[in-house]
């Protein structure tokens, strides 16, 4: 109820508001421009960031060039060589159709590394726009949107995502869009909180007094100042996106067989675990774990650098 805002300006506004804007704007913008290069240098000095980036780079190379350097064709079946334990010929063993697990793990990086960044970018763009509008416009729009966001957040996002996946069918584009949409309310909530903290700073009413339109105030003035919060949110969501993609493909709502995919390969083979064929699921599982850890290390470093 305290968020009744809108473009009305309080009568006690400083008559020198226009002058104030410029000084405030300069004071706010000057450091952000200088921060960027130092942030990079600080990041590159952190060992956790370098380790995370190296692992991520490894999987990106696998995703792009995997088909070229995988030892076998990941789709080639050798029914007589099924369920073989790891050996010199097949480092990660073979699955029940005799496909080489090492090759499938290498090539399996592709889909998850395509969907994850695209979905996170989509969610961040939509969530930022919604959060800016909720935080800045306030009033009934914010009240209604906040209720809906809260109701959606009462459901675990895995459940929402697979409901959508059942409804529209699973493919790379639909999974990307679904995860992006599911992320939107989460990111909107964070951005809204950041905007509320900015909204009463002098530069916002000043920009309004200068006659700037709401869209220009939101995207031109407030957005640059909440950018660090959005950046942290983006990197955190990136790890969640890996989680979401891997979970959906495990549940059968991801890439369809026979395309190699870590989650789908685990789903196809985990029932054989009791027969002792552990290599068919353990190596894809470790691949997911290493990717998640890499992104977490990067996220943690970015947060530490931005906080310092």
């Amino acid at each position: 109820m305290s968020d009744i805002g809108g473009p009305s300006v309080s009568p006690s506004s400083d008559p020198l508001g226009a002058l104030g804007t410029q000084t405030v704007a300069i004071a706010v913008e000057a450091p952000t421009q200088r921060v960027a290069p130092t942030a990079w240098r600080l990041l590159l000095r952190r060992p956790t960031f370098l380790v995370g980036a190296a692992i991520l780079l490894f999987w990106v190379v696998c995703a792009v060039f995997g088909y070229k350097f995988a030892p076998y064709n990941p789709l080639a079946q050798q029914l007589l060589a099924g369920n073989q334990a790891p050996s010199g010929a097949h480092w990660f063993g073979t699955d029940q159709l005799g496909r080489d697990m090492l090759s499938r793990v290498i090539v399996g990086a592709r889909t998850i590394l395509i969907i994850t960044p695209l979905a996170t970018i989509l969610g961040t763009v939509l969530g930022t726009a919604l959060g800016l509008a909720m935080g800045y416009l306030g009033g009934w729009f914010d009240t209604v949107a906040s209720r809906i966001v809260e109701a959606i957040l009462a459901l675990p996002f895995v459940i929402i995502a697979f409901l959508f996946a059942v409804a529209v069918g699973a493919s790379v584009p639909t999974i990307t869009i679904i995860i992006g949409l599911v992320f939107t309310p989460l990111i909107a909530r964070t951005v809204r909180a950041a905007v509320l903290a900015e909204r009463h700073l002098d530069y916002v009413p000043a920009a309004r007094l200068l006659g700037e339109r709401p869209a220009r105030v939101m995207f031109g003035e407030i957005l640059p100042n909440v950018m660090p919060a959005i950046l942290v949110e983006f990197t955190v969501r990136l790890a969640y996106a890996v989680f979401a993609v891997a979970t959906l493909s495990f549940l059968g709502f991801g890439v369809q067989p026979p395309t190699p995919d870590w989650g789908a390969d685990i789903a196809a083979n985990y029932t054989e675990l009791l027969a002792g064929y552990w290599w068919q699921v353990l190596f894809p599982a470790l691949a997911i774990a290493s990717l998640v850890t890499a992104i977490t290390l990067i996220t943690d470093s970015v947060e530490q650098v931005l906080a310092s």
Partner: protein
Amino acid sequence: MAAFLLRRLGLMVLTLFILSLIVFFAGQILPGDPGRATLGQFAAPSAVQALDHQLGVDRPLLTRYLSWIGGVLHGNFGTSYAYRSAVEPFVRAALINSIKLALLAFVIVVPLGIIGGVIAALYEGRGVDRVISVTGLSLASLPEYVTGIVVIVVFGVTLKWLPVTASAGQGAGVLSQFRHLILPAIPLVLILFGYISRMARAGTIEALSSDYTRTAVLKGLPETTVIRRHVLRNSLLPTITVIATQTGYLIGGLVVVETLFNYQGLGNLIYKAAVAKDFAMLEAGVLIIGVVYVLATLAADLLLIALNPRLRIGGSE
């Protein structure tokens, strides 16, 4: 105080109403005809139409929503299309199973998470802190089946210490049920550990840098007393909220864990209902999850108010 509680309850009812709308209409956009799905693709169109009429799915959306929500308010969740019998017993049994699993996970993770977070905070910025924080963060974003498979391989297949199926079978004793639930609980524990320890760490760091802690140290209290009496009591307040909000998340995790361990809980029920397009079952399951989440956050708010006298006066936000 009373006004605050009333407003809080009012918002809760509103959230539940919106939730019921979302759940109902999301269930309705699932493509496919329930009559066709039940009778199979070779059934005569007239038989499909008759069944659709019997199930009431040929009525307008709004009528269906009103009759559905009216039934729900009386404890009647409708009829399962797949089982052709009332949804309610299935949902009830599944909910009880899920609660058992979730409770075990909570009992293990809450003390572990708090201890981990407090230790990390006491060694802020040093090696121990980095290890706990980064490990917690990584574990929190690992899909449950990844850690689930690792524990199955290690404890179930290699060491053969624990059973790898979650349900102990009919009429099994409490102890046997408990043994079967340990492995499925571990992935949930690992995920929640990250969140809870992170929050406990943040709360402890804030309490450590507060004036009252400095006063307690300066007046010469031993370090353990300061931590126990002044730091811990204040640092755990935000942790309670996180534990409550993670309840909803936990149920999402149950979908995967229950599928992996083939356990008949709420997550498994929703998953199977979604695949089978069993709307009534699906809607009931998802709505129950929402209700559990909303109630858990309410309980956390009340607990916070009870523990923190300052909130009793100030009221909202």
